[in-house]
């Protein structure tokens, strides 16, 4: 696996990425998205250098204002002297495989700031609200020296909660006017918030929304907030009023910082990092074990024969899968 020629190429890339070279980094992220094998070997060299960045996830329904909030947060973190990476995920069309990645529109004023690196990713079939390459893209930005990495999910419904696997702090963005639907989204996405944001809070219904979130938190089992952190609710009003919007963004940035301090003080950061490590390992096993076998079966045309057998009721899926396991795995499981 370790080819000396690749080795030196990889080291060169690592050096460039460490120096913050955007071209090398964005190219590597592209290769990771496309599943290029060499990219995986570069990640092997990057991995030991990761773990410095603070990762903040931003999730919420489509049109909740996630990108606008990210833009506001970038400004705040820059004011505080931090470099910022942004990973913005938008959905891939299940029919054409194409995607419109439009989150950048809200963030273009930072395009020329060398302390900000914005990268859009398409979901490419991933169902958890993120793209498959997000975990590795975070590593790349981390090694580039980004102090804070903001990860914006696709507009989520109820169940797209993968963001918790990659973030130290999760913001769930809600807007007034969803009314009783809040009740419906109590499970899933409402449970992953470290901070709630009521965006567009100048609109009618924001106090009602606030009451509903409070009631939901009040009803949570007592052990939920045992560590001493009850998700605070931050109100953000009209983004077109720069003064008040800026103040809300300051408050939100302070709240994120407080949550991070809380994780550190209560020794909870480790459990979040552990969660990410576990997910990454699962993913890696999947892509190193399962995917090559499936690709082989598809390429050899075997899969078609198997499907036909199933349709003819000659066998069942478990028998076939066990046969495959016996063939490809040395030690039985």
């Amino acid at each position: 696996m370790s080819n000396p020629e690749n080795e030196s190429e990889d080291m060169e890339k690592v050096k460039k990425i460490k120096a913050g070279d955007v071209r090398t980094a964005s190219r590597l992220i592209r290769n990771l998205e496309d599943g290029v094998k060499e990219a995986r070997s570069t990640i092997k060299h990057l991995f030991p250098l990761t773990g410095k960045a603070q990762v903040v996830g931003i999730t919420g329904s489509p049109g909740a204002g996630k990108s606008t909030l990210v833009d506001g947060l970038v400004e705040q973190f820059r004011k505080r002297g931090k470099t910022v990476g942004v990973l913005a995920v938008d959905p891939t069309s299940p029919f054409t495989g194409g995607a419109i990645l439009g989150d950048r529109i809200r963030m273009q004023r930072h395009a020329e700031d060398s302390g900000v690196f914005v990268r859009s990713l398409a979901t490419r079939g991933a169902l958890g609200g993120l793209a498959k390459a997000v975990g590795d893209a975070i590593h790349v930005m981390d090694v580039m020296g980004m102090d804070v990495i903001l990860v914006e999910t696709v507009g989520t419904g109820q169940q797209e909660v993968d963001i918790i696997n990659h973030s130290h702090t999760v913001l769930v963005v809600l807007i007034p006017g969803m009314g009783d639907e809040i009740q419906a989204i109590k499970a899933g996405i409402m449970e992953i918030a470290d901070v709630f944001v009521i965006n567009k809070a100048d609109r009618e219904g924001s106090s009602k929304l606030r009451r509903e979130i409070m009631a939901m938190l009040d009803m949570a089992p007592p052990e939920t907030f045992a560590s001493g952190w009850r998700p605070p609710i931050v109100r953000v009003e009209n983004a077109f009023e720069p003064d008040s919007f800026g103040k809300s963004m300051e408050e939100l940035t302070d709240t994120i910082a407080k949550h991070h301090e809380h994780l550190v003080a209560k020794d909870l950061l480790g459990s979040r990092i552990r969660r990410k490590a576990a997910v990454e390992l699962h993913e890696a096993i999947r892509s190193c074990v399962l995917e090559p076998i499936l690709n082989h079966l598809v390429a050899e045309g075997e899969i078609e024969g198997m499907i036909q057998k199933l349709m003819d009721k000659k066998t069942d899926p478990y028998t076939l899968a066990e046969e495959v396991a016996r063939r490809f795995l040395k030690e039985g499981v």
Partner: protein
Amino acid sequence: MAERKLRVMVAKPGLDGHDRGARVLARCFRDAGFEVIYTGCHQTPEQIAAAAIQEDVDLVGLSCLSGAHRYLFPAVKKQLVERGADDIMVIGGGIIPDQDFQYLYDNGIKAIFTPGATLDSIVEWINNNVKPRE
């Protein structure tokens, strides 16, 4: 093995808010299976070049209806070259008189599409001329 996907940026440089055409194209590129990064109106050439590099696109499509294409299109190409990204191809479209075509070609703009160009012809041109990187 890996499947390369074409990444295309659609951008509107300069003081021009007429983005219907750009949006239609973005949608049409999506339907053609490309990943499209749309950056909105009022972009400087510097912003467009920086974004194109951050996004690692294969192609930048510029739309300009203000008449400033002779300045703006080559300026974007120049910014890309200065930033070491001369391999990112630039094409343009909008209200562009025939006599300006050669000047734009000479300044690194690979293709120009004007009113009347069909969406299919633009996608076909891209499929024939832009290959995702190795």
